[in-house]
């Protein structure tokens, strides 16, 4: 039935385009418009791309760099001492700790070890990720001006702290188009951390298209029976009947197209056919029964539970295999103002094995070289304790330095870039701003961040606003 349908569709499409005098016109104007918009938005890369697609493993809430990958051995002796003013340097603090009289330094509770040829340090919470050390480009010197979730996550995802700009994924969709003909070019998936319920919201704007056409907005892929909203036919409508109805609809619309000569009708008819194909391709995508048992050994048993970070990582691999340009994951629950030592191991357990598996899996399939995997949150956390020093301490938001890592896609593997001071508070070497990271990501995708622009209200807007640079130290 599937094959039959495809053939019939192809026939129908050819047929309606050929049937009338405007048919060929409609076709050429369809193609013409694509070419035209390609010229405008740079649908082709500006230069040969290292990466064709991106998987962004966003850790929402701000994971602590000090407990995970920014090893600060001196903290052990500094534990309990007051953060010196020479380190804090009058840095503005959030309203949550700005009233604090004392800023006691708190050393992480977890052990660190070096891994791989690069000798990068990882805490004991990330044993699987540590094994991938030589595939990672670790940046310990990320920084942002934002100190609260909403502006910080908006900054990381749209290049601006305030609402209104297009998201990273929508820029990619706009700039490069899609490689998938039956899936969206920009897919979003959300998972909830077991560490704690997230006390910060995710926001539509993080995957929104801002002032770009709304077709570039991220499409949520959800766990459950309707992975794409409204994907399923209503109860009582089976595929065969849907096909027959769509055939009737196509014929009626085609009559209209011939009569009215409007090429847009043909475009809309295309969308119905694409929708029909998605109704088959998405279930095929989300049906994991074709995955061997070995997959679940690799990603962990959680990968079988829809909606977990593990399942989303596996889904991310399946999506990029099918040509999806940008896969955005959010894992929530990293905002550890208190009880950090109890919560962060659970969060790490959620992500460690699956993210390492994703890299290994992409690598063995030959996909890692042109797939960029990005890992990180919206900011880091303070070296001082939020509130008084306790056994189950917490840390406040910290934008002055935080750690991210990249894998594949033209980033330099087995590298650690940037360095923070003994307190893990300030960057002492190679600071990399969010704008710089964005510029470098675009570069790897074959786009010049200065040239990927969209005119809105008289101004040519860029993802990097008026800032940003490509960071050579990060490139392979």
């Amino acid at each position: 039935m599937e094959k039959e349908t495809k053939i019939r569709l192809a026939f129908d499409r050819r047929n309606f385009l050929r049937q009338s005098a405007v048919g060929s016109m409609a076709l050429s104007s369809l193609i013409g418009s694509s070419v035209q918009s390609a010229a405008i938005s740079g649908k082709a890369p500006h230069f040969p791309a290292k990466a064709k697609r991106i998987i962004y493993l966003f850790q929402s809430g701000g994971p602590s760099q000090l407990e995970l990958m920014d090893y600060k051995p001196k903290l052990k002796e500094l534990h309990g001492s007051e953060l010196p003013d020479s380190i804090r340097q009058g840095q503005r603090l959030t309203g949550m700790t700005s009233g604090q009289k004392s800023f006691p330094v708190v050393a992480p509770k977890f052990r660190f070890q070096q891994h791989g040829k690069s000798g990068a340090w990882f805490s004991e919470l990330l044993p699987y990720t540590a094994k991938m050390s030589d595939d990672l480009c670790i940046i310990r010197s990320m920084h942002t001006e934002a100190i609260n979730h909403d502006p910080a996550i908006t900054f990381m995802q749209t290049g601006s702290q305030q609402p209104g700009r297009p998201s990273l994924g929508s820029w990619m969709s706009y700039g490069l188009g899609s490689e998938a003909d039956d899936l969206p070019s920009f897919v979003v998936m959300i998972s909830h951390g077991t560490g704690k319920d997230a006390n910060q919201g995710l926001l539509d704007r993080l995957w929104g298209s801002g002032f770009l056409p709304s077709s570039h907005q991220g499409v949520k892929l959800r766990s459950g029976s309707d992975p794409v909203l409204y994907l399923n036919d209503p109860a009582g409508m089976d595929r065969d009947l849907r096909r027959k109805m769509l055939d009737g609809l196509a014929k009626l619309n085609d009559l209209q197209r011939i009569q009215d000569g409007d090429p847009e009708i043909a475009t809309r008819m295309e969308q119905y056919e694409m929708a029909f194909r998605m109704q088959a391709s998405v279930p095929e995508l989300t049906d994991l029964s074709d995955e061997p048992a070995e997959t679940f050994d690799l990603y962990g048993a959680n990968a079988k539970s829809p909606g977990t970070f593990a399942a989303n990582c596996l889904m991310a691999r399946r999506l990029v295999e099918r040509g999806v340009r940008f896969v955005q994951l959010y894992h929530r629950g990293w905002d550890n103002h208190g009880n950090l030592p109890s919560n962060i191991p659970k969060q790490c357990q959620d992500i460690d094995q699956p993210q390492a598996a994703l890299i290994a899996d992409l690598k063995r399939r030959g996909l890692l070289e042109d797939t960029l995997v990005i890992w990180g949150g919206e900011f880091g956390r303070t070296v001082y304790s939020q509130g008084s020093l306790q056994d189950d301490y917490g840390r406040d938001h910290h934008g002055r330095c935080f750690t991210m890592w990249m894998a594949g896609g033209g980033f330099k593997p087995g590298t650690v870039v940037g360095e923070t001071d003994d307190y893990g508070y300030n960057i002492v070497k190679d600071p990399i701003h969010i704008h710089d990271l964005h510029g470098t990501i675009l570069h790897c995708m074959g786009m010049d961040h200065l040239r990927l622009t969209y005119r809105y209200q008289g101004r040519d807007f860029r993802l990097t606003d008026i800032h940003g640079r490509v960071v050579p130290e990060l490139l392979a």
Partner: protein
Amino acid sequence: MRGLILCAFFPLVLACPIPHLDAQEKIDFIRDVQPILANHCWSCHGPDENSRQGELRLDQRDAAIAKKAIVPGDSKQSQIVSRIHETDPETLMPPASANKPLTEAQKATLAKWIDSGAEFAQHWAFIPPTDPKLPEGKASWSNKPIDLFVADKWKSLGLQESPQADRGTLLRRVYLDLTGLPPSAEDTEAFLADNSKDAFEKVVDRLLASQAYAERMAMTWLDLARYADTNGYNNDEDRTMWPWRDWVIQAFHQNMPYDQFLVEQLAGDLFESPTRDQLIATGFLRNQGHNTEGGIIVEEYRVEYVADRVHTTSTVCLGLSMQCARCHDHKYDPISQNEYYQFYAYFNNLDEKQASYSKFVAAEPFIRVPSSDQESQINQLQSEIGKLTEGIAQRKTDAGKNFKQWLAEHSIEEFQKRFGNQELHHFALESDDESSLFDQVTKQRIGIAKGNPKSDEGKFGRSIRLDGQSHYDLGNIANFDGTKPFSISVWVNAQEGGAVLSKMDEDSAFQGFDLLLENGKISSHLIHQWPSDAIKVISKPAISTDAWHHIVLVYDGSRSASGTKIYVDGKNQELEIANDNLKSSIATSKPFHLGLRERSLAFRGRIDRCSIFNGQLQPEQVAELFAGKDVSKIDEWLKKESLTSEERQVMESFYLANLDEDLANQQKTLAKAQKDRQNLEEQLPAVMVMKEMVPPRETFLLKRGQYDQPANKVNVGVPGVLLKQPENARQDRLGLAKWLVDPKNPLTARVAVNRWWQSYFGTGIVKTTEDFGITGEVPSHPELLDYLAVKLIASGWNVKAIQKEIVMSATYQQDSRIGSAGIEHDPENRLLARGPRYRLGAETIRDNALAISGLLVSKVGGPSVKPYQPDGLWEDVTVDRRGKYVADTGEGLYRRSMYTFWKRTCPPPSMMNFDAPNREVCLARRARTNTPLQSLILLNDPTYIEAARSLAETMIRASDSSDARINAGYKRAVARSAKPEELAILSEVLQQASDRFKQHPEMASALNKTGSKPAAAQIDPVELASWTVVASTLLNLDETISKR
């Protein structure tokens, strides 16, 4: 490897310039030259002084000539021409680094322009429109001004008009355009049967008078006004701005003149004694988001809100993006950064209070807006409260007389028994056992020590010493709700500030009370919700550390700061009132703490003798406490022969507080009435409004637009390039609003008529509806734009008159079919040689389906509603995964989409997928895209399945004949009968569906169950399901979801 399929998920918006007229035409500076200069030169050689290179500016003719960049009449001598042809990349202009190379055609244009004299012109949009001369027209087609202007453009291109659309199509078009709803089958029939000359005009007049017209007009205003039902940002709480939406609908319904419409929204609060409606109107400027995230820096966001008001006002009224001048002088338009902040200053004078997260109602200032029922209830309660208040005052006046009377009727013994002590707790803190505290009143040890309090030398005997990590938790004592008086006396010897005592719930917006030592000063909070429902007073003089001080808080139960006293060392202190809007209870079940708030502000130092009283201590009693004595026992005074006047006053107030039963009853009744009023008021929607600060807030230019980088001070002012303000103009928003609607303002009327034009033709006369500045697109029909703008002003800003003029034009009424020439030469229909056609907007697509199917509930206005939405969307993104979307039952499922609840962080997907914005920022023009997700919604969203079933029921009831049924469906869906081929196709669909459902009746019943309305029981389920498939096909027709 998969091929690159470009059309997938891409909008097929044909981006074309306005079709070119004549290659030989004279160079026009505005149309041909200015865009090149602005886009390629002015970034470095334009109005922005700070980024200007080589002191050369190319936006002013004299300056460019003085520098020899331009030699008028001689392009060869002009440096800009040589520089743009440079082969040396070092000297080539624009430089390669700018990424803005010129095309050969652009270079030629510049040269040609210089050769022909290099005339500059003021940007067209900054010159006020004048009534243009009507072109000589083709009388055979139409003599209406719009048509004459449109046809004039066709002359040189040899174009001609399309015939008038057939009447059914035209009727449907004008219904959808004026009301956002289709004509009913009856409307269509009546119109087709009306052969009178003015049949169409009668329809137009009727539609313009309808509420549906007002709703349609308001619908587009919501995008501009970034209306939503939540705050946006991290916490995204619900808000109730819908009375403002109702105001907009009624303004359009009453045909409020457009100038008044703007002025009331921008400055209704500044009218002399503004009406409630005028206050509500200013909600326009409060519709922006509000961030309540815990750690935010309030000023940072306050500045963003002001900037948003500037952006919204300038986009909506002026079609200019002032925001470019926020960080530096505008690069293209002659608006300096200083002028930006002058404009900003108008909106900076609002004391927008940061709202707290957990109990968000609205950010002050706001007003409560009752319905008429609620209003009369409130009035009734208010008059009751008035009477009771008078009665209570009388009892107070008569206290001395009444007390005598009481004493005559009661014995001293009885008094002693009842009122021996008004002290509730007294902690002398004398014991060496620090684990808990001994209460002298109840004679027992209570509470528990946290941390390590130490007994130490005290003011009197011993005291306790707290080290900043310790405090006492005394359990749920001192449970005051704020309606009764209480007093607290305590001695402190502080090393550092903190909470001396407190009973507070920090997570519940700090509900409770405290007594603090902050920055050396004694302060106290009484809070229901900080800061919108709370008192805060601060004693003005500071106290010394490392010394004993006696502090007494006295509160009279009035819920006002004036009823709050702080005594330090026996002296009543002058207080700074930092907050004074307590309306609700301060009661909390959190424990009473000595030395800490609930969690924060630990106190370091010693505390001695803490007593809690359930009445107001009189000054004399405070003096006794300060002197180290116990408070006089009032019963002892009764034995005295004569009382001093102070003692008499104490006695009387004691009598009133404790013995006057009549007073107590009246107070109880008053409290209930007040409570009732409060409860009622809390149910009223809170509408955030504008309110000026007195004295005004000072405004500073902010370097790089940063909130914490103030530079020079600026006063209010308008961008002078557009129109100077009269000498005596008001220096506030009302002055600004009047300037905006001044008939000489070059932009306001043009921007308005252009936006309306866009809503009929899909594209504005100026395509960049949001940008009339130098980098915006030039108008396709400048004279037509000016004609309409002048007409609008001359008509007294008559909104309906302009809508009518547009739809009555022959241009609007043309057939919309596209010939091959049209596709080739004018795919976007900028020349208007055919009628408008395009896909309906998000709201109209759904409203149309609901109307066709007969499900639409045409109730106007009121709170937002929640139609069907897939489960779990809100939980996925909200804080703590709370805030479940619960769809309405009943009429809320079937209201017009402009009433759909708009959550900014998770807007309704069925709207977003059809290009609606998330309403975080002002939007003047939506994109129009085509995606498969749209098809999925129309095919599968229960809204459309239920609508299809409802339409099926109507079709089935219409006739027994299949063809007649299909025709009935067509009439409703697209206002025409089906053609034979269409009948044949749909009959086949029907047959296929029917065959399938006959084989599988369970499928039919399943389909019939979609949605909340039960399927018609009288109709055979298989028949109903089969027709539902047919009806669904009709609802998915391109023709149904398009205007044509």
